[in-house]
């Protein structure tokens, strides 16, 4: 499988919604 790793996730807001079955992304998540 392709793997989207932590270097590429830096500063993004990454959201895991286990019940909703979705993963979300937004820029500038550390601010």
């Amino acid at each position, binding site marked *: 499988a392709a*793997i989207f790793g932590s270097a590429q996730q830096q500063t993004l*807001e*990454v959201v895991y919604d*286990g019940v909703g079955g979705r*993963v979300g*992304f937004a820029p500038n*998540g550390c*601010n």
Partner: protein
Amino acid sequence: AREKQKRELDFHTIRLSSLFPSSSAPRVLSTRASNTKSSLHVTHRHGTCSRLTNGKATSPPDHAEILKLDQARVNTIHSKLSKKLPDLIRQSTSTDLPAEDGSAYGSANYVVTVGIGTPEHDQSLMFDTGSDLTWIQCEPCVVSCYYQEEPIFNPSSSSSYRNVSCQSAECSSLSSATGRAGICTGSSPRSKCIYIIQYGDSSYSAGLLAKEKFTLTSSNVFDGVNFGCGGNNQGTFLGVAGLLGLGRGELSFPSQTAAAYNKIFSYCLPSSSSYTGHLTFGSAGISSSVKFTPMSTIKNSPSFYGLDMIGISVGGQKLEIPPTVFSTPGALIDSGTVVSRLPPKAYAALRSAFKAEMSQYPTAAGFLILDTCFDFTGFETVTLPRVSFTFSGSVVVDLEPTGILYSPTTSYYCLAFAGNDDDGK
């Protein structure tokens, strides 16, 4: 003017120094982590914001070691996804970190601090979306423990500690969480449950499956969280107390706290060790600008968070990659893998487009898994093509410069991606 505007949209012009933590920079704490009741600060394991930088564990592993461990983790993930798994985990004494049928662990560098027990003891845990079982080192270290900065947790000093029975459903869940069934300490119904979790680089933790009180913040306290209390621990965990399992399986922390948080959590990984990010449970504070892509399930490995990757753009140009290149092997997101891995055809297209846009810069020799490198000696700023990934649902994720370049040294920079060794992976 239009060309200039387009170039600004499709390229980053950055100071190279911005890719490194400044030695004079103050620690900058995440406001999200400070202001949200269910948030923890996320720090680089070896950074200036970490609680772990005062003692023996201060020196970070070098980049060769980080990338070697990263490849061990990726090999493990690929082994788990294939059906060609050996039934038994083989101990390896070689130094080339072969893929074993273990759980995935590599050079995960992000740490949170959780209060465990009553009274509560702060324990720094690496967080990992690629595995389920949370474990910490426990006294007595029956066989061995590695060095950790904080005092090792002693269950006999906690009033909320309880062992898990061998007959319990939790003990049965170990098979899917660790790849190994729980072991009973005896034949009586009151016998305890022993877990063993071994990682792809031959690191391991073993001990009693137990329940404890976990305190995230003063208002987010959970009694009876199942975790591994390890009296036999060895490996590349130097400095930290253990690991926080954030996978999708039943024993993971998000699954155990589902009644409170509905299996929702979010994080931001800081780009520099001078900053903290956050790990937040529940939906509080989630940005309204978040765009969602469906989570897929990876065959044979339901603990992983699968994604449908459908395209890559470089410098505003969508690469010509047939959809099956991504859909055949599938994709997953993992907080513990450092460098993203791509199917060979997708990686070749990315590399070719990136090299073309960077043709004004001198190239340099490759560095282990990174084969596209540049020598920026003499440059203060560089202009990089923007790189973005598209996931199903038209979710476009634009990467920061720190996600495009990996720098083993201050003048030596490499494209921060690697190709898998066959298109089936």
